[in-house]
């Protein structure tokens, strides 16, 4: 690809700009992210949201792929326990999240880089806070792969 698309202006800057991929369920977390917008809550622009219908859709392989391709942090966000639009998809996501956390730890990836979060459609503030907090932590941790700086 050519032109401005491949040009990553930020990679030339001194400070590390972490890249976060967030998988958000359509009904709660994605709606929460929308509410943050409607409420004009400001948060850092480092996050790229991928919409899925349910956090249960998130295959651990997606998370691993994101890390493999250079994501500094990954968020999987779903409805609060017992509030899942699909009854209990989020519980299954949580089980996979626990497994992933252990796996990532074994792989030497700091646990701050992967978060399972419950964000309701009414929690725009929480979405903004989760992103802010993760960006701050990732800035402190530095890039996952040294060559990205």
């Amino acid at each position, binding site marked *: 690809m050519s032109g401005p698309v491949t040009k990553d202006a930020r990679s030339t800057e001194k400070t590390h700009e972490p890249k976060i991929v967030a998988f958000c369920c359509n009904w709660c977390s994605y*709606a929460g992210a929308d509410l943050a917008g409607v409420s004009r809550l400001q948060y850092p*622009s480092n996050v790229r949201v991928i919409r899925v219908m349910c956090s249960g859709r998130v295959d651990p392989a997606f998370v691993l792929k994101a890390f493999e391709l250079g994501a500094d942090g990954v968020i999987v966000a779903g409805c609060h326990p017992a509030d899942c639009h699909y009854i209990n998809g989020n519980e299954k996501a949580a089980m996979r999240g626990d497994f992933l956390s252990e796996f990532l730890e074994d792989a030497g990836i700091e646990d701050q880089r992967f978060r399972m979060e419950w964000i309701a*459609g009414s929690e725009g503030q929480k979405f903004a806070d989760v992103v802010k907090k993760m960006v701050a932590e990732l800035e402190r941790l530095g890039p996952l792969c040294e060559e990205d700086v």
Partner: protein
Amino acid sequence: MGSPEPLEKDSVERTPSQGTRDATEPRIGVFVCHCGSNIAGVVDCVKVRDAAEKLPGVVVARDNKYTCSDLGQEEILKAIKEGDVNRVVIASCSPRLHEPTFRACIQRAGLNPYVLHMVNIREQCSWVHAHEKENATQKAIDLVRMGVSKAARLEPLEAREVPVERAALVVGGGVTGIQSALDLANMGFKVYLVESKPSIGGVMAQLDKTFPTGDCAICILAPKMVELSRNPNIELLSYSEVEEVKGYIGNYDVKVRRKARFVHEDKCVGCGVCTDVCPVKVDNEFDMGFAKRKAIYVPFPQAVPLKYTVDKENCLHFKKGKCQLCVKACTNKAIDHKMEDEVLDFKVGTIIVATGSETYVPMRKGVYKYWEYENVISALELERLLNASGPTGGHLIRPSDKATPKRVAFIQCVGSRNKKIGNNYCSRVCCMYAIKNAQIIKEHEPDTEIAVYYNDIRAFGKGFEELYHRVREEYGVEFFRGRPAKLSEDSATKSITIRAEETLLNKITEREFDLVVLSTGLVPSEGSKRIGKILSITTSPDGFFMEAHPKLRPVDTAADGVFVAGCAQAPKDIPDSVAQAKAAASSAAALMLTGKVRIEPLTVAIDEDLCVGCGLCAELCPYGAPELYESEKGGTKARIIEALCHGCGTCAASCPQKALTAKQFTDEQINSEIVAALTPICGAQKPPQKKNAETEV
């Protein structure tokens, strides 16, 4: 909600595939919306368009001032035709807002509605990065690249059409539920109205007069209650609770528990002989404890249905196993202490939630001494004391000595606009009911001194401001701006001194009153949480049910076919509640009149050749959509019952064989988004060349 019944085979109609342009080679059109200055004020839309133009597979890229407008949609149609576009990416607001709009739009151009991908550069970009224009523009470019990458892999899908049951469930029998039920029944639909209390009527039945016109509440409500009970299309299930709702839009299976009232409704004629002989006296909740009722009772004389109910907690028969006085007195043999709860099953197509609100009770000790001082009462208690059919016959007294108070104070915003207790919202009714009640007191006892301690007077409705001025100027009610700081009681007279800062005069005042009324705000009703869980509908931060869109879909919820109206959605007055009740009824009717509804085809497909029949999908699915069977080719296989599949994709994420595909959220599509999101790091990807192209990294 739980698993729906499988649909009859012939009830699932397939709509013919839309469009002929869904050739495999993606030709993508990208449309970047300025949304006036909502997006363009932060994101450089031209730059985003230029970037999009260079992406692989993109044949057309445009930017529009308002993509959703007629002009904007025309341009999409034109571009699709001229550019022979077969995949569309629209970078604008959230898909939760305009996805249906643009699906319909591209369908008009002959495309399948599901070859659309919306990129959210407003709610999740320009609005949240308003002060970092460059980063926001870069993010928008990234998001568009992700969207284009996914769009290149989109496949046309066919929507399912299912029938809609021509019956509705209305939950809650206050004025909102009553109005919704009547409207639907008068349109010819079967309505089940479920009310948890022994009578319908809700909070409105307790009120004295209504603002701003001074109509007596029960006088205008009771005829509606009676009309409802006589309407042959309405099944009134009072003293009942919704226990379970399963299914999906148009096809909900409902279970309602009819609590045992220990009186057979078909035999009770409401004569009241039983209540006359009942020896037990307890506080009547309807009268806020100012009057007594018996253990067998109707809550108020105009109750509908006019059927007696035994209060099991207090009935001597249940407490001591002795008394049978009411049973002996009842000539119709209606009373039956052995009666048990019954569970009723029925099917509806739509649901209206009208669970209303309750008034805030200052639970925390010390809140204006509500629990400590007898002569501090809540607004609803005042309503009962002013009510002509209330415990005092409409004669205002104060609780401590039953004397007529000559000095009355109202304290506004109790439980509203208060961050300390977490109720940040304005309850919208307290200003006006306080003004209205001040007027009523003045009419009863013209020489009463009345003072209203307020923060802001919100007289926003039709005729409200006029009433406020009349009460202030003609009736001489005094208004003081300021929240009282301290209330203290004279131990001898039980009168109360209010110490307050009058912020307009910038001085501290102390003044004594005979009676203090707390203008308590509204909070979500007790049962609403349970109903919210049963129906999977979400609440706003204030605890009231959230509407699908605050302006354009005010009575829809996130659950299709479920509507919300009245104070269940947010505090509101009677005219607004009735208006919403009518809106919800007409929205529900629109669905039922059409008789069928399209459901999103976002289900899961299975490749039975890959399936090894491990059964993990069947184990994970809460709806029972995957079904194991013995294949003719040999071996156990799973198949998906599409009508049961809700499309969450949990099974697809777990299948060890990758035999399951979540439509529109396939592994390939999601992976392509991940790759595109991280492209500046890992390099570009090419569009798929053939139908099942591997994602290139």
